[in-house]
């Protein structure tokens, strides 16, 4: 056809443009087109002109060749621009459309940054998307393709936000795009897409899930298998998957079987936990609702315990690792057999001795996690045996069931001698049980969670400053004197135990605390304070209102702008205390809530 020769000619012209027209004169391939062009030119003036232009180029002197080439190119281009095809040969069907009324009312200046955040890399994208979600910008359906695409983003918080919060709001409107972008061979993003499709279609997505679970990439398969755990009809299929070569797939299958909890599923889980797949079966077993499964694990653990107490030393490590897995899989189970198992565990001296330390800890934690009065009572009795190895567990349980003074009387004697076995562990546990300083400053201590006053005096005597700070609770002149002494003696605001002492002084209501804090700041040579952590900043707000001017004056002496601002903010809080107390009364919230809101 005559159009084809024009494209052929364009190919030659393009070639000469790339190669340079210095050698175009007499070009053979160009020349070979000339006869056909001239023939067509007999009946059409356009071809005639093109033919002439080709002729000119072929005969051009090197100096004129460039001009001739561009003249020919321009002419040819103009002609070709009128020859573009606008139809397709394909069979097309009318578009079905949807019943949604997607709107497009978000203007460019708001929409574009959201699209950029979804499709490009860079800082601050998550915050931007959260804000966009808050402003309802995602309601515009033009964001949808980009939002579905960003499920594959490598910054995992973004896909998480999109999957859990943003995309569910579209409802069925998102289905088309999710399906369109779903690639069963894809990665984690496609697993998320599959999950969203299943959220929308529920049961009717089963066929798709089975297809994904058979043909998909590992990520997609695992997700599909886990989702199939909701459908009993898939039992056979899931059991097959539990025999897969890939560990990830087996793990997914166990999760699904755990949700299914049919007899066959339970058998398969037991087989896994008691066999080679122990490690990946622990969590599925733990999360399974079946009591029968728990019972079987308890029985198995019980037998294992017996073997452990009788075994040779070289076998002990292997057995105790096995036991640990069983214990882990029982975490959170409310089965009465668990307590029985633990009781027999802790009373079998040989078994405990054969256990590695992590296993002992697991067992002790499990006992405390039961949170049953009976379990706690049993745990309390673990203070003396095993060379006081479980003193911490015992103390924690005792703190739950005993009064403050009983607790002191039972455990304090063990601390008299710091070197005594268990004293160190007991001190550590005391630390764990006390709220950390910042939580205390912002939230206050829970009423009733106070220590017996004798603890603080005991620690003062032992000169354990940190523990004095933790346990001091009520007005006590002895403790006050001890702490004030500590704060006066070479104390610095940058030392953490000074901060702790001050917090304790404020807590026990010492009148000297504010002055002590203020003078520490003023005389401490703190000019180069370059950072104030949250605890120290919150500590400053404990000052009474009358200290506001001094605090502000102190702020002015600081070199670093950010610290200056922090101190000024603390001064603002101090200044507004009366007003805050009123407000707090009105709203019924504590003054600490108010301080918290001000310091953030």
């Amino acid at each position, binding site marked *: 056809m005559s*159009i084809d020769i024009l494209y052929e000619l*364009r190919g030659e012209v*393009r070639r000469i*443009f*790339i*190669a*340079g*027209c*210095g050698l175009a004169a007499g070009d053979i391939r160009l020349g070979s087109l000339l006869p056909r062009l001239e023939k067509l030119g007999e009946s059409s003036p356009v071809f005639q002109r093109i033919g002439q232009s080709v002729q000119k180029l072929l005969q051009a002197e*090197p100096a004129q*060749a*460039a*001009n001739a*080439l*561009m*003249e020919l*190119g*321009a002419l040819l*281009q*103009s*002609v*070709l*621009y*009128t*020859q*573009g*095809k*606008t*139809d*397709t040969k*394909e*069979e*097309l*069907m*009318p*578009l*079905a*459309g*949807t*019943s*949604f*009324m*997607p*709107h*497009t*009312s978000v*203007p*460019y*200046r*708001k*929409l*574009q*940054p959201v699209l950029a955040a979804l499709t490009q890399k860079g800082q601050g994208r998550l915050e931007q998307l959260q804000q966009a979600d808050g402003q309802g910008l995602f309601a515009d*359906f*033009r964001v*949808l*393709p980009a939002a579905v695409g960003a499920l594959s983003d490598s910054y995992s918080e973004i896909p998480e936000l999109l999957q859990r919060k943003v995309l569910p709001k579209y409802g069925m*409107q998102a289905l*088309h*795009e999710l399906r369109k972008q779903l690639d069963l061979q894809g990665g984690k993003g496609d697993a998320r897409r599959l999950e969203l499709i299943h959220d929308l279609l529920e049961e009717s997505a089963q066929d798709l899930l089975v297809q994904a679970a058979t043909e998909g990439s590992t990520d997609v398969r695992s997700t599909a298998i886990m989702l199939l755990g909701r459908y009993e009809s898939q039992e056979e299929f899931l059991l097959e998957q539990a025999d897969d070569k890939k560990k990830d797939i087996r793990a997914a299958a166990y999760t699904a079987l755990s949700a299914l909890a049919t007899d066959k599923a339970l058998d398969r889980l037991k087989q896994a936990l008691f066999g080679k797949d122990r490690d990946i079966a622990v969590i599925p077993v733990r999360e399974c609702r079946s009591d029968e499964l728990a019972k079987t694990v308890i029985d198995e653990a019980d037998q294992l315990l017996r073997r452990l107490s009788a075994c040779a030393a070289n076998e002990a490590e292997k057995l105790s690792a096995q036991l640990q897995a069983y214990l882990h899989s029982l975490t959170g189970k409310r089965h009465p057999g668990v307590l029985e198992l633990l009781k027999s565990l802790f009373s079998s001296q040989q078994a405990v001795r054969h256990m590695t330390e992590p296993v002992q800890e697991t067992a002790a934690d499990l006992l405390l996690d039961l949170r049953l009065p009976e379990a706690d009572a049993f745990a309390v009795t673990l203070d003396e045996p095993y060379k006081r190895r479980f003193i911490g567990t015992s103390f924690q349980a005792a703190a739950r069931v005993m009064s403050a003074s009983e607790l002191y009387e039972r455990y304090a004697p063990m601390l008299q001698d710091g070197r005594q076995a268990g004293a160190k562990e007991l001190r550590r546990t005391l630390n764990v049980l006390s709220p950390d300083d910042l939580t205390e400053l912002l939230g206050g201590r829970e009423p009733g969670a106070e220590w017996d006053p004798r603890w603080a005096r005991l620690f003062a005597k032992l000169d354990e400053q940190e523990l004095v700070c933790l346990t001091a609770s009520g007005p006590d002149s002895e403790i006050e004197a001890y702490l004030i002494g500590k704060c006066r003696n070479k104390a610095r605001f940058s030392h953490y135990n000074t901060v702790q002492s001050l917090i304790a002084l404020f807590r026990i209501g010492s009148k000297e605390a504010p002055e002590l804090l203020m003078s520490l700041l003023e005389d401490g040579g703190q000019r180069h304070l370059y950072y104030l952590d949250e605890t120290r900043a919150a500590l400053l707000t404990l000052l009474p209102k009358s200290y506001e001017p001094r605090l502000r004056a102190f702020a002015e002496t600081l070199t670093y702008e950010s610290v200056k601002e922090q101190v000024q903010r603390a001064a603002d809080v101090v200044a507004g205390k009366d007003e805050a107390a009123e407000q707090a009364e009105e709203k019924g919230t504590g003054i600490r809530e108010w301080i918290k809101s001000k310091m953030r």
Partner: protein
Amino acid sequence: MNVTEAYVDGLALNAGAIKNGRDLMKKNSFPLLCVSEDGAVIFGECKGSGKEPYRCSVDFANPASPVFRCSCPSRQFPCKHILGLLYAYADGRTFQTAPIPPDLQEKRDKAEKREEKKKETAAGGSGSPAKRKTNKSALVKKAAAQLEGIEIAEKLIRHIAHSGLGSLDPKSLQLLEDQAKELGNYYIPGIQIAMKELLFPLRSDMGKEERYSLAMEKMLTLHVLLKRGREHLGKRAENPDTPLDLETTLEERIGHAWQMAELRENGLSLGETGLLQLAFRSYADEARGEYVDEGYWMELKSGSIYTTRTYRPFRAAKYIREDDSVYEVVLASDPVRYPGDMNARIRWEEAVARQPQDSDYELIRGRAKASIPEAVKQVKNQIKNPLSDKHPVLLLRYTAILQQNDQFAIVDEAGNRLALADIRHLAHPTTGLLPMLNEGWLKDQAMLLMFEHDMEQGRLAAQPLSIVTGQSLIRLMY
């Protein structure tokens, strides 16, 4: 005055300013918020990083063009403090009634006097403003310099054509770029940009074949531009009274920056005009070194589709208002039209807006072209001209939208089909959105399309930008 959040958004120069202004309001950075007794002025104080707060105010003495004042040194105007003040007002925060501060009152009085004086001179000055005089010998001199520049440009592309695109290595490209910079001395900025547009793809990292095709096309355009420019400027060099070319974009392509007054003098003003924006986009033009904000508008009376274009040089982008999608009907008083093709550029200085009604959409849909072959013919007629806009935009009526996998097409009432595709020029896919449309929008509506000729495939493709139904405008781009 009616201050809404959307109104304040519209005042802001860019998205960043919107956020900063809003944040100031959210963070309660305004210890003082006041409104004058007559309600015409709002003013307040905003905490800044310094000791003294910034004093900002908005004066609605003339509600159509409020006056903003702020004591901060920012070059962005209106600054974030003014925006924050307005957001606080739109948000319904409490504004105390207070007398206007004396320094602000002084400024107001001065402005009022200026306004009066202006009116007086306008009333006193008889009839039309004095016709501008032009220095003819300077014009001749300028044309001579321009011709000299064209000669240099011609030499450059002849050199490229001679040695071939394949022979251009980074070193020779650098040399060419340096020479292109030289063109800046000859009053032909348009040609200089065309030269940069030719060199730009050659330096980019796109595929080799694509690069060559694009460069060849640019060379051909440049060749024709230089040829026509030489003829045109040659005439002017001989006779400085040769009129400016008002039919084509030639003057602009050489580098003439049309002034509104000049266009008006040449009879290119449109009178009172109602316009509705059908699509908007903004892109970075690397060769020009500018952001371009582009709006496509239908003139309600004639059905012509015009373009608005704001250029924001990269370096000054922060200080120039970033254009935005406009949803209202704009009633522009006397806009001017630039010489050009079917989507000629227009510009206006004063306008008021009103909410669009169903009848507007009905009217616009009615103005759509009914026949695909005729529309295609019109497009081809334009793009075959080497110096034309190669991406015309048209509103077309369709009876149905068709699909098969990723292929889409529309059908007109005579059963002709037009294939739709995402075009390279826009670099922003929209066809993927079509399956999500409401079923009611798929029959007997109108579609705004941008065309592009794909030389390699021999196809003329059209990408949907928007859909106009009887009641609404669905924007597929922005």
